[in-house]
Structure formats: structure tokens, C-alpha cells
């Protein structure tokens, strides 16, 4: 299970967005789920750079196009997890 310490080890939190978000008109539950595997495994990625090397600002730009903003983020050595608005 999770411990309260998890509240303090975010890699990123957008406080302004978090405090001003209103979910009143955010219904329409069913999500759209997009999953893209660029390569089958980490081992065959070319050029020594991976998706984890892309700058945060560029993910923010991409998510703006789909009308999502980043509320918070957690990092592990193998993946990044973003919690988004909407």
C-alpha cells in the first residue's frame, strides 16, 4: 500500500492549475486510449536517446494540442507517469 510520504516526492506539481481546476463540466466518462510502441524493446533503440530524454516543455506543448495539462508527475528509472487535467 502507499504511504503519506508519497505526497512529498512528486517530480512536478502545477499548483496554479491544481488549485483552479473545476470539474463541473468535465463529464463524458469514456476515455480515448492511445498506445504506441515505437520499438519492441529498450535494447534496440537507436542513437542512444529515448522518449525519457524528451524535455518536459515539449510534452506540455504536445498535451496542449489535445486539451490536457499536466497536474503532476512521478518519475521512476524506467518510466514517467503524468496525471493530467480533464
Amino acid at each position, binding site marked *: 500500500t502507499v504511504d503519506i510520504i508519497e505526497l512529498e516526492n512528486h517530480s512536478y506539481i502545477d499548483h496554479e492549475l491544481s488549485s483552479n481546476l473545476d470539474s463541473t463540466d468535465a463529464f463524458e466518462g469514456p476515455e480515448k486510449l492511445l498506445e504506441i510502441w515505437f520499438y519492441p524493446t529498450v535494447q534496440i533503440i*537507436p542513437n542512444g536517446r529515448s522518449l525519457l530524454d524528451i524535455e518536459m516543455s515539449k510534452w506540455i506543448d504536445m498535451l496542449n494540442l489535445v486539451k490536457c495539462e499536466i497536474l503532476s508527475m512521478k518519475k521512476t528509472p524506467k518510466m514517467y507517469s503524468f496525471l493530467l487535467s480533464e
Partner: protein
Amino acid sequence: SSMFVYDHRIILKTCGTTLTLLCLPKLFELVQNDLKWDFKVSEKNDNNENLYSPYKVFYSRRSFMFPDKQKSVHKNWSDEVDYLNKFFINGESYVIGEDKIKANKSHWNLYVTKTKKSLVTIPIDVNDSAHEHDDETFEILMTGLSDEKTKNFYKSNLKTQDTQYELDSSSTNNTYADEGHVNGYTMTKQNKIDEIYESFKYNKMTHDAFAFSPCGYSSNVLINDEFYYTLHVTPENGWSYASFESNVQCNNNSEVLRNVLEIFKPTDFCLTFFRRKTTKKSTNEENILLNDTNLTPYEKLDEIVYDLDDYQLLYIHFQDR
């Protein structure tokens, strides 16, 4: 909504009237310019634009409750498929569980590209019991949540005395939790969302949750730094909805299913289970996608198994008797 990024793959799950597919041009521009990954193929689409061929693409969604409120290409499935076909070669689309006679509106839509097997340049070690070629995605999409359960996802009903976390509104530290994240943590604990995999042996759990105002909840839980499960809840009466999605490779998804149903007690839900198995050791028992799907008080309306290239897909639609 949530996004998960690995070295070699990305998962974007967005709720509401978001424009998920419109990220595709920017995403391929990013990997081309920043990572020098080139997935363009020589063939072009009808508009003489580039087509791409990454290893594998999935796009899916349950039928919308309010399709008229959707924007751009998301207003209907055929437009979404047309848009995807402008980007990818060898894509196939499916509408699963549709019953036009009963006007069943709970169907599920799937678009998937053929696996680009030429990218598998390293021989797969089939003796490795858990190598990373294995892949599972388990999704439960629920509607008609019980009133008793939906009230747990309203900010005004939160019992916050157990959280014992003091907010510091003056903090400028951008990793310091705010009210939405504190309430999200409280909802996670009070609804036992962190105990969904209670009998699964793992070493580490990382958690991020947010409680929306006035209601609603999203959470991402990471297991052993490399797997995730995510929950999104819209509790409003009349269009209540919750979704659970996980790529945790666990041998007892039936128990996971029961734990999730206990949190929401929906009257209607469908589950989908994708699995790519390449391990040699799998027995007949392990080949069963879900070991127990008899769920009181639910009745199965549809149960469909698909073989999709190197994946198997199980779809089941349940309704309260």
C-alpha cells in the same frame, strides 16, 4: 486523464472532450527531431502526407455517452479510423459487442496496426520467464456506479481527519502537495485503491492521485518502477463512470476484477484483456486469459476472443441481473 512514457513506448489515456489523436503529428515530429527516430515509409497517404510504421499502435475506446459533445475527429468512430489511416499503414478497425437489434450502446471500438516484426532484431529468449516481450493490458470500463460508492468521490464527503497532512500554501516547492493531491491520497486510502493488487507480491509502489472539485478522481499507481495501474472516476448521478486500466502482469486478474468491482459496484461494465505471450513455459492453465468470469450478480451479455496478430484479446460485457 493520464500519460505514461517508457523509453520505447507511450500510453495516453484522456477523458472528457479531449482531442487525443491530434497529438500524432507533434509526437512524430518530436521523435524525428529530438531522437532521430525515423518511422516514415516511402508510401504516402491520399493527401501526399507521410505515413508512419512504428512497431505497434493501439487506439480504443468504449462508445461515448454523449457523442455530440465530442470535438473534431472524435465525433464518430469512422472519422477517427480515417484519421489514423492517414498516419499508419496496415491498420485494422473493429467494433466489438455491438448489437444493432437491441440498440446496444455499450460497444467497444478498437484500431490496431499489424506488428512491424522487422524491428525485432534481437532473438527472443523464450526460456526467460518474464522477459519484456510479454505484455498485458487489462481494462475495466464501468457505468451505473452505486450511489453508496459514488459519494466517496465527492470532495464534500471526504473525511480528512485521517490524512494528518498539513498544507503549506506559502511553499514555492513545486513538488509539495496541494489540496487536490492530499484529497486524492485520502480517497485512495479510504476506497482501498492501493489494495487492488493486495495479494500480488511487489517490492515498490509509487502513487499519484488527484481529487477534483466538486467531484471526480484520477490516480496513477506504479508497481516496481515499471508497471502501472490507473483509475479515473466521474461520479455524477445519471452518467457515473469509472475506468480501471493496468499493465501489471499478475496471475490472478479475476481477483483484481473483484476488488475493482467492490470499489464501484457498477450495474454495467465491460472488460478487455490484451495479452502478448512469448514465454515457452506457459501451460494450458496460463493460456486462459481470465480464470474466473462467473460474477454474482452479473450476467454475461457478450464474451468474445480475438486473435490479433501476436496478441490475444478477450472482451466481456456484463450487466447486473
